[in-house]
């Protein structure tokens, strides 16, 4: 952490987005995480994605649990709504908020402890229900706040900073999210913003449960030889299946790609994703194929990154439940509470 506030001055040539904001306008308070923490790069990527999408900060709700990762919503979007919930309970708070006001953009920020250990059940159910959200796990494979014990996502056989080998099997959150029916699943790396920023932007545009697992090295406790979540290890074993650009508006797609290498995915919000294939055989619309691909590469020790699965026609929890279109806080009292006659009528329908 630092003692001084980040200076207000910014580069005089900074570009402004459609709202007239620079990316600096999407910042929050200065980070209190350790110097070099991967989480700060994820924070910077969220800032960049929101800036590029010209999102009005007051239209975003950022919700988190407990942990290093869950501190980060304080460091971005200083003018957005926020809720720092109990450990592992981010998904249920987010689900509730989403049901009450479907018009906000929901960013769920969590970590491997918050989502794969104490909040594993909550994580599973929010994905299963198809809550319209962008669920980001800042995954460092270690309990940083308690000085570096293995977390549930630490790979079996990887070594702790003290040299102890992990004997437990790892939870692969991406594999679980695919299995639970997430309609947008991606993995990325905090040290690769060119991949991460468009993934976050695309996830925000997706209507349904979007899940991004971001491997984020813990500089203090998990960036040593023997770790499988270190900068060096991830860079050496990163196997990106695709790269993407998010296109907002109706501009034609730049044609400097070799034919057949670009796949365009239309999103609900009108934006489009241009996917540049790296692995020619990889089909991001094939859930089963993705699961197999992941399992095979994981067995070889490779870390598959990119947009792994997307269902462009996804539905979300509101359409399943057939809820009212209007946010509850803008409904009049007589609509919210139509009186005893309406209740009697409803009860009668159930008899």
């Amino acid at each position, binding site marked *: 952490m630092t003692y001084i506030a980040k*200076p207000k*001055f910014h*580069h005089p*040539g900074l570009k402004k987005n459609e709202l007239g904001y620079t990316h600096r306008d999407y910042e929050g308070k200065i*980070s209190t995480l350790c*110097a070099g923490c991967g989480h700060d790069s994820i924070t910077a990527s969220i800032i960049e994605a929101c800036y590029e999408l010209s999102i009005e900060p007051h239209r975003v709700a950022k919700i988190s649990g407990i942990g290093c990762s869950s501190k980060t919503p304080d460091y971005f979007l200083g003018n957005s709504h926020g809720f720092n919930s109990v450990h592992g309970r981010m998904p249920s708070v987010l689900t509730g908020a989403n049901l009450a006001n479907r018009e906000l953009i929901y960013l769920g920020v969590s970590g491997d402890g918050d989502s794969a250990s104490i909040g594993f059940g909550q994580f599973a159910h929010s994905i299963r229900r198809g809550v319209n959200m962008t669920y980001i796990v800042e995954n460092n494979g270690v309990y940083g706040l308690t000085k570096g014990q293995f977390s549930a996502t630490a790979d079996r056989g990887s070594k702790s900073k003290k040299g102890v080998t992990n004997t437990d099997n790892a939870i692969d959150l991406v594999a679980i999210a695919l299995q639970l029916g997430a309609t947008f699943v991606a993995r990325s790396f905090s040290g690769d913003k060119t991949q991460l920023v468009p993934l976050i932007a695309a996830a925000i545009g997706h209507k349904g449960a979007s899940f991004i697992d971001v491997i984020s090295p813990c*500089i203090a406790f998990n960036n040593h030889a023997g770790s499988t979540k270190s*900068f060096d290890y991830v860079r050496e074993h990163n196997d990106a299946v695709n790269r993407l650009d998010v296109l907002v508006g109706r501009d034609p797609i730049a044609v400097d790609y070799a034919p057949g290498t670009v796949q365009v995915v239309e999103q609900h919000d009108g934006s489009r994703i241009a996917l540049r294939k790296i692995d020619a055989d990889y089909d991001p619309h094939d859930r089963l194929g993705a699961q197999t691909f992941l399992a095979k590469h994981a067995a070889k020790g490779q870390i598959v990154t990119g947009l792994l699965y997307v269902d462009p026609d996804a539905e979300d929890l509101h359409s399943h439940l057939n809820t009212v279109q209007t946010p509850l806080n803008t409904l009049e009292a007589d609509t919210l509470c139509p009186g005893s006659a309406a209740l009697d009528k409803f009860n009668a329908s159930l008899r």
Partner: protein
Amino acid sequence: MKPTNIAAPDYFHKVVDCQWACPAHTPVPEYIRLIAQGRYSDAYMINWKSNVFPGILGRTCDRPCEPACRRGRVEETPVAICRLKRVAADFKDDITQRLPRPSAKNGKRVAFVGGGPASLTVARDLAPLGYHCTVFDGDPEAGGMMRSQIPKFRLPNSVIDEETGYILNLGVDFKGGHRIDSMKALLAEKYDAIFVGSGAPRGRELDIPGRKEAAANIHIGIEWLANVSFGHTDKIGKRVIVLGGGNTAMDCCRTARRLGGEKVTVVVRSGFEEMKASPWEKEDAIHEDIPILNYMVPIEFKHVAGKLIGVTFQHVKAELDAKGRRNLVPSGDPDQTIPCDDVLVAVGQENAFPWIEQDCGIEFDKWHMPKVDPKTFVSTNPKVFFGGDAAFGPKNIIWAVAQGHDAALSIHKMLSGEDITERPLPEVHVSSQKMGIHEWSYDNDISNDKRFKVPHRDKVIALKDIRTEVELGYDVKLALGEAHRCLNCDVQTVFSTSLCIECDACVDICPMDCITFTENGEEADLRQRLKAPSLHPDQDLYVSSDLKTGRVMVKDEDVCLHCGLCAERCPTGAWDMQKYLIEMTQAGSTCPTKSRSAA
């Protein structure tokens, strides 16, 4: 691009924009930090060593440093460097104990023609080394144009007396009222070296109809200012026209306002924007109710019975010719006559060397200027050196000082039997400012304050007395606020490739988006791929050698705030904040010595 060689003394020097722009290369951020700490005497001595006349320059310098100041690229206005220099001079204690002592004479004699800033700088550098310095000046007291041409309401005599005194007290022999009128005679006195610092003493004439007939009321600006300075002139007509747009014209019009000029008007040939006068001097003139009329060319002095009654002007406009050159052409508006009682002509200064005989071994070029080597300042006579306005025409005091240091070094080397063309490299100190994980030995918190105004004396009082100084200078509180605006550009961001793990922490925290990690390329290409647009290609890119991923770190030095956040957020110490202090070589400092410097 090749990795940047930060060991080259010029690389970091260029990052300290103010110091790089200063002809004398005064370590500006270093003395501003000392002012912030209340160490005014230390700040003064740093200035004294580098620019010799801190109190004088703190009031009169043309400030090449301020347009260069990085702060001016970050917000609207640069740091008030010049007026902070005055603060050091105003609030210092008695510093006489810190000055060099007159030393035992080495038997070598150096003569100086003119006692202005160039000569005095050379004398200051040479006298402590044992040279017997004799300064000749036509005026009774030392200071040259600083005393004769700059009005007292800008620069009081007490300041000139003090700072010329520091030099003369080094055992320099000052012969006032002794004008040198023959170089030949001077050479015959067998001095070991002669330095000519006689300035540009002749005001340019304006030869238009009526000049001779109305001569009694037409005055040459610098001569008139000198007469005012020495008390020979103490009044002027009620209506005064000042011709010319330089700083001398500004001094003329403001002086006229104090000697009875009620309606003083400045008229310039070209546009207001193109005037040579410093913007703040124009502001000060306008503040004293002096209108500045532009695009008017004087064509005739109107007179009746030998008495001046006005000046006729032709209106012109600026046009670009086929070659893109700017020309003034008649605008077609009818000529205008402005009535007046006196005219002050301040249309430029010229050098004049009628006292240098043809056969002195000193060659002149076709513009009648001596042939002077721009590095060593030696003339074609190896014993005769030139500096200041006498060498390359009218410039400002700070240039005279800078040239004086170089000439002194040449004279010292020549008289030590060394090759004067070999110039020793400057002495450079680089030291880490790290005190703790996020503590630095400089104040890295960036002030958001706008430039503080220097308090002025009330106009009514100021205009009453020509010897009342207009500017009051910063008080301690204002000085502290202004000093905090300095970005400490001399505390450099130093990058160690081998320590970097490419975690992006520095990129994420940098408030100015200065840092980019990317594939290497040619400079023009790299400048296209920076995180924030490259606005000033004259500002260097700091490029690392190849990192583990094959990329390089590129830092655009342009708008770096030197806040040190990159170094605070760096987990491995790949970034460090290191203070860079460069000491220009002066006479007698040929061997780098371990010198004491303020932290």
